[in-house]
């Protein structure tokens, strides 16, 4: 008993020290610099006049950058455009060498949205954070003698079928920092979003704001949430590319945030009705236990991922039917055809007993992801990082010793149990079936 108390005390101490060190090493406890709110990001791929429908700049298969590259081929019916600015034609403005590209989106006080693409021929151009009259800005710095081309795309509020293109090209003998973003609260009504950036960004020390996106948001379109059935009680989804090849981890991030996985379950019997929704932090795999019903029903399960302040992307859906006893009738490809076709009911007692088994089955393939603790009253969430890499960094040899002892003790325990199992197997009178002790 004394040994047990010592073990329990050590365990509690270990847990407390782990949590304490997590908090110690956690990120995002509070804003660290004045620049943390400068960068906002978006996946908006359209421009819009306040009184008009959005004009899409892209479609599902091309990203905005490709579209911009073919800007001179506009307009697409029925839209028309009008060239303004210092360059008389698109081609003349575009003829400069494109070394770095930046694309920004600006939301105006009247709700309209404009786009801006900036190119430079300076291969060493950088993105810099700096203060102007006490206001933090993010600007693009071009070295002396290089060009900066600025192309604006704005809708015509008086004619929804038309928008303006303003190609401008400037040369800066002394160099320049062209500001492209500042915090929303410093320019009321205006929100400057960064859509894409190729400039090398120099972040301030201890910067904890959003990172400037260095890939098109559309790149995430190569990944889609794919749902399949792994057991009779739940669906398991995971990210896959368009060839249905899965990824080891998450294929993309929303800046510093983990994408959200959203699952919606619709009943399609007697008209489509939304039955259930689930929104959770995405991981390489995500699961959902579907609801049962009192009669045979047709369902549609829809999954999509989204980023904070972003609309959904890449929807996957499957149609299926559940019979009166809650078993799956048809619709979703099953990993184990034999077992899926049996359609066992999903009663509470059965679920209660098999769920620990499912839980144990998931243990060997668990991958650690940072734990995000939501904080009340608008405080920034606390992120507890995975501890093993931190142990490895600071306590390498001790960790190895600890893991060796732990593994050895467990291996010894397993060996004893295995011996007992084999002995039991060879005893013809021992007909007990061993399952996991719940």
């Amino acid at each position, binding site marked *: 008993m004394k040994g047990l108390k010592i073990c329990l005390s050590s365990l509690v101490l270990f847990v407390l020290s782990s949590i304490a060190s997590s908090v110690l090493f956690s990120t995002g406890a509070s804003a660290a610099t004045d620049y943390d709110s400068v960068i906002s990001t978006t996946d908006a791929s359209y421009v819009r006049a306040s009184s008009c429908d959005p004009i899409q700049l892209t479609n599902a298969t091309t990203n905005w950058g490709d579209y911009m590259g073919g800007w001179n081929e506009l307009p697409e019916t029925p839209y028309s455009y009008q060239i303004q600015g210092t360059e008389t034609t698109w081609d003349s403005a575009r003829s400069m060498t494109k070394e770095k590209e930046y694309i920004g989106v600006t939301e105006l006080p009247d709700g309209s949205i404009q786009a801006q693409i900036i190119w430079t021929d300076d291969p060493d151009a950088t993105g810099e954070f700096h203060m102007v009259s006490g206001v933090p800005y993010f600007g693009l710095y071009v070295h002396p003698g290089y060009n900066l081309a600025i192309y604006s795309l704005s809708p015509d509020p008086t004619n929804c079928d038309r928008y303006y293109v303003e190609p401008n090209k400037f040369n800066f003998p002394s160099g320049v920092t062209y500001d492209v973003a500042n915090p929303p609260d410093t320019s009321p009504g205006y929100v400057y979003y960064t859509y894409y950036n190729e400039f090398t960004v120099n972040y301030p020390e201890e910067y904890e704001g959003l990172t400037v996106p260095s890939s098109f948001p559309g790149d995430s379109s190569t990944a889609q949430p794919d749902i399949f059935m792994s057991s009779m009680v739940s669906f398991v989804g995971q990210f896959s590319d368009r060839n249905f090849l899965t990824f080891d981890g998450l294929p993309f991030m929303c800046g510093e945030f983990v994408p959200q996985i959203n699952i919606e379950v619709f009943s399609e019997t007697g008209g489509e009705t939304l039955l259930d929704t689930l929104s959770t932090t995405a991981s390489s795999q995500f699961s959902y236990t579907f609801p049962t019903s009192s009669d045979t029903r047709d369902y549609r399960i829809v999954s999509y991922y989204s980023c904070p302040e972003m609309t959904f992307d890449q929807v996957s859906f499957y149609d299926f039917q559940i019979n009166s006893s809650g078993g799956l009738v048809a619709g979703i490809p099953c990993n184990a055809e034999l077992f899926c076709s049996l359609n066992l009911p999903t009663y*509470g007692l059965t679920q*209660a007993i098999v769920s620990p088994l499912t839980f144990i089955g998931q243990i060997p*393939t668990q991958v650690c992801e940072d734990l995000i603790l939501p904080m009340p009253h608008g405080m920034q969430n606390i992120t507890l990082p995975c501890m093993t890499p931190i142990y490895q960094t600071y306590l390498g040899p001790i960790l190895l010793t600890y893991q060796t002892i732990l593994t050895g003790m467990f291996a010894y325990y397993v060996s004893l149990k295995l011996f007992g199992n084999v002995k039991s197997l060879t005893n013809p009178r021992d007909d007990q079936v061993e399952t996991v002790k719940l």
Partner: protein
Amino acid sequence: MDWDGLLDAGLMGDLLRMAIEVVMLLVGIILTPISALIALTLPDINNALLSIPILFDYANTYLGWILSAFAIPGILLTFMAGYYLFAITSKLAVWPFKLALNWYRALKLGS
């Protein structure tokens, strides 16, 4: 030594899951009558029991971090998966033969 790379945890995990699904199927078959009775006569208890898987799903979201916090090496988890795989499947595989043998013995003694 790279503990995590010593054995293929993914393969062990898949095998364990397969074994567990077989056990879940058997448990489901055995419990169906009493489960149906509970669902029919005591629907509130049935609903309460249905919340248990949700609890485990919730616990599962923190499992990876907890394993990391305790620095549990991957090989230990693989050991555990392998052990339960053996314990569950071997006994299940041999059990029908032992059962038949016991029945045969009982009938033989009776006659």
